[in-house]
């Protein structure tokens, strides 16, 4: 049998057109009765802090070793502040008094944050870092707006609310093209993983200006995407400027 005959055989096979009305009805009832509060992934802020955000930032630092050609290859300092806008999780239950939960509560109720979101409702709150009673929090609105907020846990106030980066459709497509060309990502895709989210992230680091010899701060917008396969998740950081995947982390 040649290829054309095989294709013809596949196309002409009588396929099952079976539908079980009882299953359809029962599943519909079960879905519609499911508690909406259970829709969101059960991820707590503390889980996130341990498993995703801190790891992500540390790995970001490791990844920042190949600046654009105008800068010297070696970075003068390891100081790299990455304001990652990469995690999309459900709004965790705001109970308890941990610093993470307090920071999230303060940020999502802040008039400054709501104003920066253009009056939109808060959908997700992510804690990136807490240091010296100052928390860096990312708030995403239901309409997709992102605000990076600094929360003073001592005064319980938001001291800064800055509108986060946005990716254009072209940048998002570029990020997907870069990622899917990467062998590590390709391997995950081949195993059945899917890219669920593509989000922008700011990356700020110090580098030496080759022309002046001075240390300057560079801020770039990269993309961060999340891949899922079953219960496993990978974060993929894409340097849009140099057109490469910086890291793929489990």
């Amino acid at each position, binding site marked *: *049998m*040649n290829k054309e005959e095989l294709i013809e055989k596949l196309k002409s*096979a009588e396929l099952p057109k079976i539908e*079980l009305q009882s299953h359809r009805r029962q599943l519909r009832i079960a879905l519609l009765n*499911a508690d909406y509060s259970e829709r969101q992934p059960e991820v707590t802020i503390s889980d996130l802090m341990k498993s995703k955000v801190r790891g992500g930032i540390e790995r970001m630092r490791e990844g920042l070793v190949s600046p654009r050609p105008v800068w010297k290859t070696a970075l003068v300092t390891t100081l790299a502040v990455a304001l990652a806008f990469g995690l999309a999780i459900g709004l965790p239950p705001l109970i308890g008094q941990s610093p993470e939960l307090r920071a999230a509560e303060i940020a999502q109720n802040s008039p400054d944050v709501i104003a920066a979101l253009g009056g939109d409702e808060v959908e997700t709150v992510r804690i990136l870092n807490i240091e010296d009673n100052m928390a860096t929090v990312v708030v995403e609105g239901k309409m997709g707006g992102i605000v990076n907020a600094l929360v003073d846990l001592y005064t319980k106030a938001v001291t800064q609310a800055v509108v986060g980066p946005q990716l254009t459709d072209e940048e998002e497509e570029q990020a997907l093209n870069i990622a899917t060309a990467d062998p590590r990502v390709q391997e995950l895709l081949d195993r059945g993983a899917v890219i669920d989210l593509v989000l922008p992230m700011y990356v700020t680091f110090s580098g030496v200006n080759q022309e002046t010899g001075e240390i300057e701060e560079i801020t770039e917008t990269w993309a961060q995407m999340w891949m899922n396969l079953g219960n496993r998740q990978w974060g993929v950081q894409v340097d849009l400027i140099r057109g490469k995947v910086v890291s793929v982390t489990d």
Partner: protein
Amino acid sequence: MNVEQERELVERAKNNTEAFGELYDQYYSQIFGYVLKRTASIEVAEDVTSEAFFKALKNLRQFRWRGVPFSSWLYRIASNEIANYFTKSKPWQSSPEEVSNSMNLSDPSAETEFLQAEAELRRLEEFLTVHENISKLKLKYQEVIVLRYFEDKQLKEIGEILGKREGTVKSLLHRGLEKLRKLTE
């Protein structure tokens, strides 16, 4: 339902159970049919379809509209669930006891419908033979072949469903068909 209507419905469904019910009504048959063609088992198709829709409900708020049809997202979830099923279990071999235990025995009409569906599936000998050969392929080949020839999806749409580039899909399809051809010889 056009794209804009679907988009609006998906947005409503993020906060409205009834709207999700409309999406479910729209796509249940497609997803169940796809899973059935992948697994050739009524019981597995029921379980995997249920799991897929619950995952869709749970993760709907994370769905972002990027020009990819909502149905592709559902197919993607279903494909992942099928992959999970195959990686977590041996090929499906139910004993009669297992089959009856999995059913809602308090609903005689459901039992009758299930048995009729099983009989109907067993009647499709040609499909079952083809499926048996397809099931010997790696999952990555199975899914592109089923989506292309049983679900009649174009390469672009298969790429959207599987998160692969069109060229990759084409290459997988070519290699998958070649392997399937050797198996059918």
